[in-house]
C-alpha cells in the first residue's frame, strides 16, 4: 500500500523546470571551479613543503615561531581596529546629520562623501604623502612622527572606507519609526534619552554591521599599507613580500589563512546582524521626518563641512600633485606626468583597466542577476538552490589578496585544463566578478524579493514559459537595480588592487597596479596621475549612469511614475 503511494510521487516537469535545473548545476560547477577549488588548493598549499609534499601543520609552526611575522598580525589588528572606531564614529554622525536633522545642503554633502568610492584606495595614501610626507606641506603637524607607518595607514583607510560605512549607516538610520519618537515626546522624554533609548538601539545592528565590514576592509587591504606603510608591516604586505619577493608560496598561503579567518568571523557576524535589522521595521511604521532644530542643524553643518573639506583636500591634493612639474620645487603646471611612456608603461594599463571594468560589468551583471533569479524564483530543486546561495555569499568572506593567491595556485598548476586562462584578461575578469559577487548578488536578491512571488505561478497557469515572463516582466521591472549592480562592478573593477595584484601579466597590466609600481619606483606624481585617471573614468561612468537613470529609465519605467499623475 505505502509502496504504491510512493510510486505516485514522481512529478512531471515542464521545460522551464529542466532548464532551471541545468542552469543551477552549471552555477554550482562554476562556483566550484572559480571559488571552492582554488581556495582548496590554497589550503593544501599551506600544508606542503617546497617540493609539494604534505607536511601537516609544519608551516603554521614555522609562522608562529617567526616574531616578525607575528608582529604583522598585531599591526594589522591595530590599524584595523583604530580605523574602524574612527570611521564608525565619523560616519554615524555624518549619516545622523543626513537622516535625522534639517541640515542644509544634504545632497551636496552626500555627493562629496561618496567621492572616495570612485578612487582606488591608494589615492588617499598618495595624497597623504603630499600633505604629510617628507616634503609634505603640513609635515610639522605630525610633531616629528612619520606619516609612513600606522598613522598614514589609519588616515588613508579612514578616508577610503568612510563612504562604505556611510551607506550602511544611512540605510539603517533612515529605517526608523517616527511613532516611537512621538510616543517618547508625549511621555516627556528628553531628546538625549530618546537618542540613547530609541536611535542607538534602532541602529545598533547597522553599527555592528558597519564595524565588521570596515574592520575586514582595512584588515585585508593591500594598497594603502603598500604605499604609505613604510617599514610598518601588515599581513597583506607580508603575503605580497613572501610570494613576489621571496617566492615562498607556502608561507604566503599560511599568512593568507591567517588573514582569512578573522575576515570569515567578521562576515558571519555581519550576516547575522543584517538579518536582525530587517525585522525591526514593520509595514505599519511611519517614516521619520526630522524637525528643524537650529543649534543641532548648525553644529552638524559645521561637522559635515569639515569632513567634506578634508575629502576635497585629499582628492584635490592628489590632482594637484599629478599636474605640477616637480613637487615641491617646481610648482608649474604640466601634463607630462600623464605620459607614462617615460616610466616604460604607456597608457596600456589604463586601457586594460577600462576593458576589465567593462567586461566585468557586462558579464558580471548578467551572471549575478540570472543566478539570483534562479535562487529566488525557481519552485523546485531547493537543495541545489541553497548550495548556490551559500556559494554566492562566500566571496564576501574571502579577501581579494587571498582569492588572487588561490587563483595562482589553482590555475597555474600545469595539469589544470583551465591553465590556458592564466595570465590572460579572462582570469582577471573572472576573479573580479567572483571577488565582488556577494554585494551585487544581495542587491539583485533584494530587488527580486520585492516582486510578487506569485508572478511565476500566474505565468505557469497562463502557459507562458518562465523565460518569456523573465524577459517581459522581471527584467524591465528590475532595470534600476540592474544598472546599480553594473555600475558597482565597473567602478570596483577600475579601482581594485588586492584582487588582481597577483594575476596581471605583462600584457594585462592594470592602472591601479601600475600606480602602485610607479609609487614604488619613486614616481609619485605619475602614480597620482594614474590614480586620477581611474577617478575620471569612474566619475564619467557615474554621470552617465545618472543621466541614463533620469532619461531612459523614465520611459521604460513609466508605470512607476504614472502613479503620481493620477492618484
Amino acid at each position, binding site marked *: 500500500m505505502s509502496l504504491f*503511494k*510512493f510510486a*505516485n*510521487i*514522481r*512529478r*512531471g*516537469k*515542464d521545460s*522551464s*523546470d529542466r532548464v532551471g535545473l541545468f542552469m543551477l548545476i552549471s552555477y554550482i560547477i562554476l562556483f566550484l571551479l572559480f571559488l571552492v577549488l582554488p581556495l582548496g588548493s590554497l589550503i593544501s598549499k599551506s600544508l606542503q613543503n617546497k617540493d609539494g609534499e604534505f607536511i601537516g601543520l609544519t608551516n603554521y609552526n614555522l609562522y608562529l615561531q617567526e616574531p616578525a611575522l607575528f608582529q604583522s598580525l598585531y599591526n594589522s589588528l591595530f590599524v584595523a581596529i583604530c580605523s574602524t572606531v574612527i570611521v564608525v564614529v565619523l560616519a554615524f554622525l555624518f549619516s545622523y546629520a543626513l537622516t535625522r536633522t534639517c541640515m542644509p545642503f544634504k545632497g551636496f554633502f552626500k555627493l562629496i562623501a561618496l567621492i572616495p568610492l570612485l578612487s582606488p584606495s591608494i589615492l588617499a595614501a598618495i595624497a597623504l604623502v603630499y600633505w604629510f610626507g617628507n616634503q609634505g606641506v603640513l609635515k610639522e603637524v605630525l610633531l616629528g612622527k612619520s606619516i609612513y607607518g600606522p598613522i598614514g595607514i589609519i588616515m588613508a583607510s579612514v578616508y577610503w572606507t568612510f563612504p562604505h560605512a556611510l551607506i550602511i549607516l544611512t540605510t539603517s538610520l533612515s529605517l526608523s519609526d517616527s511613532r516611537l519618537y512621538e510616543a517618547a515626546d508625549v511621555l516627556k522624554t528628553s531628546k538625549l534619552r530618546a537618542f540613547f533609548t530609541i536611535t542607538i538601539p534602532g541602529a545598533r545592528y547597522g553599527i555592528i554591521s558597519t564595524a565588521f565590514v570596515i574592520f575586514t576592509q582595512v584588515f585585508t587591504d593591500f594598497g594603502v599599507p603598500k604605499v604609505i606603510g613604510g617599514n610598518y608591516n601588515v599581513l597583506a604586505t607580508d603575503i605580497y613580500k613572501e610570494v613576489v619577493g621571496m617566492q615562498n608560496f607556502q608561507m604566503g598561503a599560511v599568512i593568507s589563512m591567517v588573514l582569512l579567518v578573522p575576515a570569515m568571523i567578521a562576515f558571519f557576524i555581519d550576516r547575522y546582524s543584517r538579518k536582525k535589522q530587517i525585522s525591526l521595521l514593520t509595514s505599519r511604521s511611519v517614516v521619520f521626518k526630522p524637525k528643524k532644530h537650529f543649534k543641532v542643524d548648525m553644529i552638524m553643518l559645521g561637522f559635515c563641512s569639515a569632513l567634506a573639506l578634508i575629502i576635497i583636500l585629499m582628492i584635490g591634493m592628489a590632482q594637484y600633485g599629478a599636474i605640477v612639474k616637480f613637487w615641491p620645487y617646481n610648482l608649474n603646471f604640466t601634463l607630462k606626468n600623464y605620459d607614462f611612456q617615460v616610466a616604460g608603461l604607456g597608457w596600456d594599463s589604463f586601457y586594460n583597466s577600462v576593458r576589465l571594468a567593462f567586461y566585468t560589468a557586462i558579464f558580471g551583471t548578467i551572471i549575478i542577476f540570472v543566478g539570483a533569479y534562479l535562487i529566488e524564483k525557481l*519552485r523546485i530543486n531547493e537543495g541545489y538552490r541553497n548550495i548556490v546561495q551559500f556559494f554566492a555569499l562566500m566571496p564576501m568572506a574571502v579577501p581579494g589578496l587571498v582569492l588572487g593567491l588561490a587563483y595562482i595556485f589553482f590555475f597555474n598548476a600545469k595539469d589544470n585544463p583551465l591553465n590556458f586562462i592564466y595570465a590572460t584578461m579572462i582570469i582577471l575578469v573572472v576573479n573580479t566578478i567572483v571577488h565582488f559577487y556577494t554585494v551585487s548578488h544581495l542587491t539583485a536578491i533584494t530587488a527580486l524579493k520585492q516582486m*510578487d512571488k*506569485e*508572478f511565476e*505561478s*500566474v*505565468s*505557469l*497557469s*497562463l*502557459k*507562458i*514559459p518562465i523565460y*518569456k515572463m523573465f524577459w*517581459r*516582466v522581471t527584467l*524591465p*521591472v528590475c532595470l534600476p537595480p540592474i544598472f546599480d549592480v553594473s555600475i558597482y562592478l565597473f567602478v570596483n573593477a577600475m579601482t581594485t588592487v588586492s584582487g588582481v595584484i597577483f594575476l596581471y601579466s605583462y600584457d594585462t597590466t592594470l592602472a591601479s597596479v601600475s600606480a602602485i609600481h610607479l609609487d614604488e619606483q619613486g614616481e609619485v606624481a605619475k602614480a597620482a596621475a594614474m590614480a586620477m585617471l581611474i577617478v575620471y573614468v569612474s566619475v564619467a561612468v557615474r554621470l552617465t549612469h545618472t543621466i541614463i537613470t533620469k532619461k531612459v529609465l523614465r520611459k*521604460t*519605467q*513609466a*508605470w*512607476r511614475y*504614472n*502613479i503620481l*499623475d*493620477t*492618484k
Partner: protein
Amino acid sequence: MLNNNTYLEVKDLSKSFGSFEAIKNIDINIQEGEFVCFLGPSGCGKTTLLRCIAGLETQSTGSVIQKNINISNEPPSNRDFGIVFQSYALFPNLSVFSNISYGLINNKWKKADIKKRVDELLSLVNLTEHATKYPSQLSGGEQQRVALARALATSPGLLLLDEPLSALDAKVRVFLRKQIRDLQRKLGVTTIMVTHDQEEAQTMADRIFVMKDGEIIQSGTPSDIYTKANSPFIASFIGSMNFIPAVIDSSNKVKCNKIEITCDIGKFKANDSVQLAIRPEDIQFKQNNQDDNMIPGTIKEIEFLGSFQRVYFETINITDELIIVDVPSATARKIELDINKEMNLYFSKEDARIYST
C-alpha cells in the same frame, strides 16, 4: 457518490513539509459548474490544497483527477486552470490591456482576436475605460477585477481563487462578492475559492468544505453547515454560538444546573456531560416565567450594531460566560432593554443543539 458530471476529483491527497503534515487524506468531488469554498482558519491547509490542485505544490501522496484525466504529476503549465491571488500579482510594468492579453499572446492568437477578447473581458468586469492604465493607477478592487479577467482570458475549465477579497475594504469586498458570483454563474466555470471569511463562503459558495488542521471536517451547502454544524468548532467558526455546560439527566432531559431544557438529545445518553449550543439570534427575551427553556438573569451590557443590538446577559449559576443575544433593533425598542434589568431568556427546542464537551 459517482456522478457523470464530476469535474474534479481529489483522492486521498496528503502534503507534508518536512515533518509537518499540511493536509491529510483529502477526498473531494466537485461537479461541473459548481462554486465551492475551502473555508478554515489560517494554517488549516486550505491554500496548500488549492496549490496542489493547481500543481504549484506537489502532493506527497494521492491524486488529482480533472475531467477523468489523472493530472497528479503534470506541471502547472499542462493543467487547465486560471488563478487569482490575494496579492493580485498583476505585472506592474504592463498596462491593464497587456496584463489581460498576457496569456493569449502565447496561444498564437491573431491581433484582432486578442483585441476582441480583451474588450469582451474588460466589459465583463466593467473596466473598459481603464484599458491603457497601469495597475498602480487602479484601486484594489479594480486591480482584482483585472486579475480575474486575466485568469479568465484563456477560458479555463477551472477557476481558482486564493483569498481573492481579503486585501480589500469591507464595502468593495461585498460588491465584488456579488460580481464574482454573478460572473461565475454566467460563464458556468467550475470554481474553487479559498477563504477564511465565513460570511464570504456562505454568500458565494454552492458548497463549503470546512477545514481544520489539514483535514476536511464538514462539507455541505451553506445553510446545512450553519444549521447542522457537526462540531462546536464549526458552530462557533461559522456565525457565533453560545455554549452552556449541561448534563443529561435520567429522564433524558438536558439540565443546566437546576434548569431543565427540552431539546433533541440525539445520540447522547443519561449522565453524559454535554454543551448546549444556541445561536445569539435564536434567543428571545421574555418577561414572564412560565414556558419551558427559560433562563433567568441580568443584562450586563448592550452594544448597538445598527440593524440589531447585541446584549450580554449574565445568568445565575448556569455559566460563567456571558450569554450573547442578538435582538433586532425594532424589537429592542419595544421591550425596553436596560443594563441591570432582570429578564428571562427563551429559545425554542428546535434551535438548541447538543455537542459533547
